[in-house]
């Protein structure tokens, strides 16, 4: 009889009060603030015919913006993958002056408002900026080019890879490294065959998070990008422009596609994290 009752309840019995109130308010607020507003995107897109929708989503301008947004985000995520691993490595395993300060500052791109990041990077990399003037002598133009977009997105994604890898690196059992060392493996072999497989899930998760963040980024990119349609226009800006022109339908269509991709990435990250935790971790 008790077993039957257990199966029929949707929640395990608990002595603590407040479940109804807490869950009720949570669901109400969630619907009000998140689900209902997001649904307008679907509603608006549904009001278009399929040809209209497809036309808006695959216009040359939209396609060019996808190429820039996805391409630059991918390159930025790649740069952050390589250097993020390096930074996490030196922060966890080595000792050097101001290490704790550097460790704290890694989160700066996360805490800094995007508009501030946008104007400071543009000023730095413009033709007469500190970095821009030096690069101009080498013939490299950064501001108002896709390169500038990549620089901004690299800045934005910096903390994600570092913070994903750091805990894993920290919890690594030094015993397996020493075992490998005593069995004759050199530094590179130890790294490649023993440590890297341990770090791979967190590394991929962090890089994907950096990629997802870079995709939707607006504030830090819109100053340095130059925003010329078909050349240096990122997708979020294209959406904004369409809204300014009251082309709500077109904006919704592109936004919907973008949203679906972002959700897909988030789901991927969640899946990867769950797979990782279902395997026994060494040490």
């Amino acid at each position: 009889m008790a077993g039957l009752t257990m199966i029929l309840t949707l929640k395990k019995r608990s002595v603590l009060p407040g479940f109804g109130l807490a869950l009720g308010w949570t669901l109400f607020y969630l619907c009000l603030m998140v689900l209902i507003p997001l649904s307008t995107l679907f509603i608006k897109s549904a009001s278009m015919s399929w040809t209209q929708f497809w036309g808006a989503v695959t216009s040359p301008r939209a396609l060019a913006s996808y190429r820039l947004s996805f391409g630059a985000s991918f390159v930025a995520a790649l740069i952050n993958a390589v250097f993020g691993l390096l930074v996490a490595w030196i922060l966890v395993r080595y000792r050097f002056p101001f290490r704790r300060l550097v460790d704290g500052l890694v989160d700066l791109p996360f805490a800094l408002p995007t508009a501030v990041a946008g104007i400071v990077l543009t000023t730095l990399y413009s033709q007469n900026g500190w970095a821009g003037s030096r690069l101009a002598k080498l013939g490299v133009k950064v501001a108002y080019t896709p390169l500038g977009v990549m620089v901004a997105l690299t800045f934005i994604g910096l903390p994600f890879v570092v913070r994903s890898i750091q805990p894993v690196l920290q919890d690594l059992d030094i015993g397996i490294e020493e075992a490998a060392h005593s069995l004759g493996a050199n530094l590179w072999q130890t790294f490649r065959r023993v440590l890297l497989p341990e770090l791979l899930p967190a590394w991929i998760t962090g890089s994907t998070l950096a990629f997802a963040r870079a995709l939707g980024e607006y504030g830090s990119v819109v100053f340095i990008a130059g925003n010329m349609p078909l050349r240096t226009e990122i997708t979020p800006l294209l959406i904004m422009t369409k809204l300014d022109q009251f082309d709500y339908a077109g904006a919704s269509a592109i936004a919907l596609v973008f949203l679906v991709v972002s959700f897909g990435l988030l789901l991927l990250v969640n899946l990867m994290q769950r797979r990782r935790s279902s395997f026994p971790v060494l040490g």
Partner: protein
Amino acid sequence: MAATASPQVLAAPRLEPRVRTDPALVRWTLIVVGGVFLGLFLFLPLAAVFANALERGWGTYLAALKEPEAASAIRLTLLTSAIAVCLNVVFGVAAAWAIAKFDFLGKNLLITLIDIPFSVSPVISGMIFVLLFGAQGLFGGWLASRDLKIIFAVPGLVLATTFVTFPFVARELIPVMQALGSEEEEAAVTLGAGGWKTFFRITLPNIKWGLLYGIILCNARAMGEFGAVSVVSGHIRGLTNTMPLYIEILYNDYQFVSAFAIASLLTLLALLTLVAKSLVEWKTERQLAPQDSVREEGS
């Protein structure tokens, strides 16, 4: 992992490096390369904000901050953040209580739904409210007939900011409350305490550091939000310009020193957030490992 870690590892501060290290050449090459990368992408921008703000000296810097439009931008930013943070704190606490203390069907789905605003681009976050309340939006006609303004007015800014910072407090509190467990609350209830009393006397003191950090993070994000508010604000000077929007206007008007002056305020806020983060991490570590450190003074 905790079961196999030796007591020394548990007690050591988080950043303690290993005893056996890689050869010096490898070490220092990596440190230098890492340093150059961080110098370029982290320290350079940080220094540039203040260098640009103070380019024409302290006088110009302070004058820029005292401009009436600057003052109203600062006031508006503080107002919108305060409202957004309060709303999200109430939600965060409720959600964390429901998720951490109870087991129910659909809990994982709820956690995923709460995370949604994180994966939505800021521009889209603002746009959905325009679709709802804008002139051509779902409720546009209804609002216009009652002469209520949400988009291009302060309520729109509040809504967009609240949406963007929606998950911060909840995400911070859920792991903290899960790590703390329910034993103390259950003990209180069996001793006869009611729900609110249990919450205020038992739960709140335990989660205060996580809650504080969630508030700080939520506030920093709210004050710095740009994309979402850009869409809903209409950029009406002196009325619907928050600090980030005001920075954009100044910058596009080539008033660089003023733009960087306001930017420096937000940068200081960001640095304060980082300091608060380190403090809170230090405090929660001490709280969760009391056997290895001196007991808290009964706070």
